[in-house]
């Protein structure tokens, strides 16, 4: 009995929700009510960027299945020897941890932005940017290590040449995104600290920057899963 009521209540919620969506879309002026146009624009851009990364990853998977030479074992290639012991994927694990942590600090920065806490917002954004810079630094280290081991875009000693090629292309493109994000975060943090947004009364830049940053993190999760764990 109580379950039936709960279900019908849920159905009402869904109907009400759908009605609100319909009302928003059939309203004048704005589809996304009380949403900064920049935020809407960032969402649409991220949708487009999703297609770029999807194309990269789908192409990578296609190449991997149709490559004529054996695919190298990622767990062996991406292992580090620490204290005489080879630990698989240790660097990637740390990199992933760092990047996910940066999403945490970013979320806190957005929260403090809502509260108009100028100093904490700026500090947390700088922390996010530092995490991002750490990530790019470790990626540079990983690239150097692979290049020293003879991995090149046109071939590598472990197997299919597509391995190195797609590794450099995809992580390079992602690293480029992270680098752009770091620069953007620092610029916004600088403006927050200077009090630009207190004067204009509009902190949405922090949130828009945050959207981009979370997206870059999310993409990394997919790259991590498809490239390193597969």
């Amino acid at each position, binding site marked *: 009995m109580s379950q039936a009521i709960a279900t019908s209540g849920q159905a009402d919620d869904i109907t009400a929700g759908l009605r609100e969506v319909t009302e928003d*879309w*059939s*309203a*004048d*002026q*704005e*589809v*996304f009510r*009380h*949403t*900064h*146009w*920049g935020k*809407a*624009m960032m969402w*649409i*851009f991220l*949708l*487009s*960027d999703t*297609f*770029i990364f*999807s*194309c*990269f990853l789908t*192409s990578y998977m*296609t*190449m991997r299945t*149709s*490559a*004529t*030479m054996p695919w190298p074992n990622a767990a062996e290639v991406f292992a580090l020897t620490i204290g005489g012991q080879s630990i698989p994927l240790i660097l990637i694990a740390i990199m992933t941890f760092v990047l996910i942590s940066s999403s945490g600090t970013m979320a806190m920065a957005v929260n403090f932005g809502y509260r108009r806490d100028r100093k904490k917002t700026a500090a947390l954004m700088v922390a996010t940017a530092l995490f991002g810079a750490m990530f790019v630094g470790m990626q540079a280290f990983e690239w150097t290590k692979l290049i020293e081991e003879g991995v*090149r*875009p*046109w*071939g590598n000693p472990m197997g*299919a*040449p*597509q391995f190195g*090629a*797609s590794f450099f*292309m995809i992580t390079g*493109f992602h690293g480029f995104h992270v680098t752009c994000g770091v620069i953007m975060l620092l610029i916004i943090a600088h403006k927050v600290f200077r009090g630009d947004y207190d004067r204009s009364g*509009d902190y*949405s830049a922090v949130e828009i920057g945050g959207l981009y940053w979370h997206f870059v993190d999310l993409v990394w999760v997919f790259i991590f899963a498809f490239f390193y764990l597969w």
Partner: protein
Amino acid sequence: MATTLADDLKPLHHPKTWIGKYVWSQDHKVIAVQYGVTAIAIGLVALVLSVLMRLQLGFPGSVPWIQPENYLQYVSMHGMIMVVYLLTALLLGGFGNYLIPLMVGARDMVFPYVNMLSYWVYLLSVIVLVIGFFVPGGPTGAGWTLYPPQAITEGTPGYSWGIVTMLVSLAIFIIAFTMGGLNYVTTVLQARCKGMTLMRMPLSVWGIFTASIMGLLAFPALFVAAIMMLLDHLAGTSFFMPTLFSFGQTTDTVGGNPILFQHLFWFFGHPEVYIVALPAFGIVSDLISVHARRNIFGYRMMVWAIVIIGGLSFLVWAHHMYVSGMNPYFGFFFAISTLVIAIPTAIKVYNWLLTLWRGDIHLRVPMLFAIAFIFTFIHGGLTGLFLGNVSVDVPLSDTYFVVGHFHMVMGVSPVLVIFGAIYHWYPKMTGRMWNKTLGQMHFWLTFLGTYAIYMPMHYIGILGVPRRYFALGETAFIPDSVALANAGITIAAIVVFLAQGLFFFNMIWSLFRGPKADPNPWGAASLEWQTPDTPPVHGNWGPKLPTVYRWAYDYSVPRPERDFIPQNEPPA
């Protein structure tokens, strides 16, 4: 909180200097004209290339400096320029920029600075493209589809330098389009004026809006394909390159997947057809409605047809690849999805006809072009049904039938709409009227010339004449009539080419000497004709934004003063 320009909270920054007004301008109308002029200029290059190709085909050897490799280069550059740099840029960058803010009642795009940047990056892509004509080896001759491995293999014209400028230019173009497209989509979603609901927008805006979304989702595939091919060529990767035996030696590339490029290319390439077609569909609906003094038949159906065509177009790409060697069962799926698109498309065509039905049709020049579009589009669409079926496509593939089909459906049809649209909005854009007689001469020569050019191509295509061939030579299955048809096509093409001179003369002469135009010469109800100034000034609407009370299609209203109700007229 939400500070859109439409809220009138953020004052527009009016430029003081001539350069700020007309060169580094952030006004959507100036950017639109910049886009339009650049696109038409590079389109003229492609038009000249097509005439050179026709000279070789119609009268082989008549122009001694057209060598086989030049011919292939003309084919490739003509195709790519027309599809991407002319049609996409003109319809979205040109008409999108001009019409969206005016038609939805905004002062400008939501992010004018990025909009300006979009144009300058587009110009850069055009410059890089043109540089391709002057690099050693000339532009690429790989065909507009740029299929690897031949695109970057020795023996193809422009395989070393030309292909690099082409791919780099495409990547730059995509960046430019993304900046513009984000603006178009966001402006439509978030910056409409009071009363302007999505379902009150003119169909032109719907077409451009849907096409912009499609562009944002389809161009990434081309971007990725371009980057991967550049790496194949410059960094020696083997993404698309299998091991080849070339000039007595095996190449260094191992195990690449050339079909992957085709999938990526057509995942962009097929939506691209509709990125060009949907704005044309939208614009032509408005032209027909205004000049037939009838409300558009089945407005809601028209909107949903646009959206459904846009969605379906992402599920049909491999119908360009029936003969690529992919799994035949794929062909089955893609043939079905291709033929399903015919349903919403047919809905649109019937609705155009039903709008004309018992309408008060004024055969002015824009209307002539709009009706001509219905003809060419039906013809091109019907041949599409042939090519969409696997078993019919296989023998027709890579013949002149295909050339006739796509020129009819996505070459000529959008171009006719573009002409119609330019004639239609010219009085608003310039404040002056063009010459009617010249316009009519231009129309009849272009329209009849179109049929003289492309109808015979279907015939020689069914005979089996292959496309992209420099010369046919002595071949048993090709009768003499083909040479005659080719000569006729070439003569028609030259006539049409020269007829465009009438258009350019008319436009430029009228700009300075044309009579002053009425602010709303066609009696149109949509918002862009209700601006306080003609041509509209920066900010579009004077001190107060308009308020919209109705849709854009209230025509043939029985009342004495005027037979239409503008969108911003309050209810009596």
